[in-house]
């Protein structure tokens, strides 16, 4: 579940009413298990100490999918590097490391304790170790705080979405500072290359200066991140409509726990009593979620196939099969994809493509699918999550970092955005026409 989808209610509900605990992919032997999946409602976070860093270090070495092929010293070096940056004046040197995880940890910890007992430095060290995995599904969740004055459904940030690569441009204005400043879809952002800079997260409240172009007009605005209400209708995870009375359009914004069934019900409802030519599934911006839901959605269009593999570092793979209890829709399918389609969304898209269950239209997917993140509870009641097995595609191909290329490349353009045109959807309708 990505932040985009999980925003709002999910966190509140997580304490008592969301998904059952995800199954553990691989359980370590009791002696070696230094961390376990969280059970029950989250508890109040305790200070992060060096002992928590130790637990996380051994947790990664015991459970992370790539750990058997890693040099454990890399984690300690990364942690130590971060320490030296946080304490530029301290006379720090890394003790000799032998490659023995326990002995090296003892040496590291002894050095650390000599330097500091500051809690924030334990956090810096742990964050650096997790970052050293360079894994898009590895994260340490701590100090997750809502902005004061938050209401369920609110957005935080500058108030707009961007798309495009060169140039980067506004794809949607949601509210907040962007709406106040009069930004419109199609406005080109000339001074920012990294879209990440346009997505500040609380508590980051630094104003961002934008140089904008609309047609021939150029101007600058300074936007300050903040909370803003969003249109609730746009937040529904599954949205559907009938196009021209003959094509069923279903947008799936994330693979939340009931997403596939909701999509199926939408399709059934819209096709009832009419002759429908096909289905467009719009998964643009779908940041992922449950692999089970992704598999079920594929299974409405193809049966008896492998949709993905979960593999150990030495390529022991378990294939994930379609769920053939799902009824086949039996209509031609076009899937709209883009660079916002990540994780479970790429699981879905790669399976559709590999088994010719439909055509993909749009732009290449995100390539953020290292493997399903499994949560582990640390003793300060924070959660460390990472894949215990990696994800490979239906043909055991690597999708992570590569993404899934569409059959038909239809990139969004500022002109289309300004005019409210959806070129990818138009292409999809053409494809369904000729099938």
């Amino acid at each position, binding site marked *: 579940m990505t932040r985009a*989808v*999980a*925003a*709002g*209610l*999910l966190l*509140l*509900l997580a*304490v*008592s*009413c*969301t*998904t059952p605990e995800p199954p553990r992919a691989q359980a370590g032997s009791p002696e070696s298990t230094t961390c376990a999946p969280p059970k*029950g*409602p*989250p508890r*109040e976070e305790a200070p992060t100490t060096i002992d928590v860093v130790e637990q996380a270090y051994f947790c990664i070495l015991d459970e992370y999918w790539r750990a058997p092929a890693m040099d454990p010293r890399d984690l300690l070096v990364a942690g130590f590097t971060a320490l030296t940056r946080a304490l530029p004046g301290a006379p720090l040197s890394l003790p000799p490391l032998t490659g023995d995880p326990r002995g090296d940890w003892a040496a590291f910890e002894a050095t650390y304790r000599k330097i500091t007992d500051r809690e924030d430095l334990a956090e810096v060290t742990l964050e650096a170790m997790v970052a050293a995995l360079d894994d898009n599904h590895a994260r340490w969740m701590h100090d997750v705080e*809502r902005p*004061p*004055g*938050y*209401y*369920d*459904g609110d957005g935080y940030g500058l108030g707009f979405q961007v798309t495009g690569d060169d140039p980067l441009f506004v794809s949607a204005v949601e509210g907040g500072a962007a709406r106040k400043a009069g930004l419109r879809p199609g406005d080109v952002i000339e001074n920012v290359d990294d879209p990440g800079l346009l997505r500040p997260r609380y508590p980051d409240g630094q104003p961002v200066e934008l140089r904008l172009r609309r047609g021939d007009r150029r101007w600058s605005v300074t936007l300050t991140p903040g909370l803003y*209400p*969003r249109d*609730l209708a746009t*937040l*529904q*995870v*599954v949205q559907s409509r009938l196009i021209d009375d003959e094509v069923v359009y279903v947008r799936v914004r994330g693979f*939340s*726990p*009931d997403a596939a*069934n*909701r999509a199926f*019900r939408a399709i059934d*409802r819209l096709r009832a009593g009419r002759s429908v030519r096909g289905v467009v599934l719009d998964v643009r911006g779908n940041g992922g979620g449950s692999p089970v839901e992704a598999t079920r959605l594929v299974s409405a269009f193809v049966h008896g196939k492998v949709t993905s593999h979960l593999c150990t570092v030495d390529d022991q793979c378990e294939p994930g099969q379609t769920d053939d209890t799902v009824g086949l829709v039996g209509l031609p399918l076009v899937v709209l994809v883009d660079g916002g389609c990540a994780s479970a969304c790429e699981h879905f898209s790669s399976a559709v493509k590999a088994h010719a269950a439909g055509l993909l239209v749009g732009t290449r997917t995100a390539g953020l699918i290292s493997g399903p993140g499994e949560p582990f509870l640390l003793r300060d009641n924070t959660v460390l999550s990472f894949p215990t097995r990696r994800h490979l595609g239906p043909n055991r191909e690597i999708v992570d970092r590569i993404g899934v290329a569409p059959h038909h490349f239809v990139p969004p353009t500022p002109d289309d955005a300004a005019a409210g045109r959806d070129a990818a959807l138009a292409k999809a309708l053409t494809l369904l026409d000729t099938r």
Partner: protein
Amino acid sequence: MRRTLAVLIVLTACSAPAPPRSAAPSPTPPRPATLAAPTGEHPVGTTVLHLTDASRPDPWNLDAGARELRVTLWYPSGRGAGERAAYMSPRESELTLAGSGAAGVPPDILSRTVVYATTDAPAPGRHPLVVLSPGFTKPVSTLTSLAEDLASRGYVVAGVDHTYENYATTLADGAVAECLACDSDTDPGFGTGVVGNRAADVSFVLDELLKKKPAMIDPTRIAMAGQSIGGASALAAMAADPRIDAGINFDGTTYARLPRGFARPFLFVGTPQHAPGGRDHSWDRDWNLLKGWKRWLTVTGADHQSFTDLPQLQSALGLKPLAGTPGAARLAEITRTYVAAFLDEHLRSRPQPLWAGPSSRYPEVKFGS
């Protein structure tokens, strides 16, 4: 059975952490529950109204062009009343139990719950009105114990079943609406959407009741109370509708934006997890926006369902309360006493000593903030 209970608790506790509870299969076949007797002076009558709001489409059933609502009225009555009312229908019982993951009990057992209100009872006099809104997935009959008590004390109570937001609502044509809203309950903005819909439901219900029952209801004295998202809806409905003079929220995370200078009386009643500064920030946020009479109570040992009928239904469902939780009769007494004190204070202008601070008679009730 442990699993059953866990599922039941999880499904019932949609906005606050629910402490784990132990359960054991009951040794004898469970018998239907008998609710605590109403404590006021009036016998209680009850009737069901089916109302249709043609001005807006149903928010959950995309094929329904109008919003159908079922409203259960409980009211102070005279003597010589008719038959005892049903708690819910056998089909509603079956769907509610199935939705809650309860198993191993007769599916109709909730419909055999013994209540006190009678049907076809006369409705003498004009009284203040209290709207009740239940928790998500729950029919409003899960607030019957409170509703009957309030009616016996001289209030007309209108319990609203927000169609498609619970496991079973029998509509005017006999069809049983199930929980369509359950499909999307993990969507961002879901809670905000629900309380917005419920505020619209309640405004429509008030329009209809004031039109249809002018002899029964005093339109100048109206309050609303609810549990979980129903409690959050009380605040949302008050923000949207100035006719509602006062409100009570039992343990519900809140979602509505309050207008500036919102000064009507409001009462928060929560579990210890809902104490000031707890994990759910919504009450802290709203507390600062409430500019009128306000109190924030927490009840030691209470869980998310403690303010509903559930504690009284537990033995019928083969469930046992966790050690440390006040008994069902005690929870009913606390809930009824504080609600009545709130309503008597604000709808009847009768000052209540309970609001001065902690009471030695109710040591479980803590005053926060």
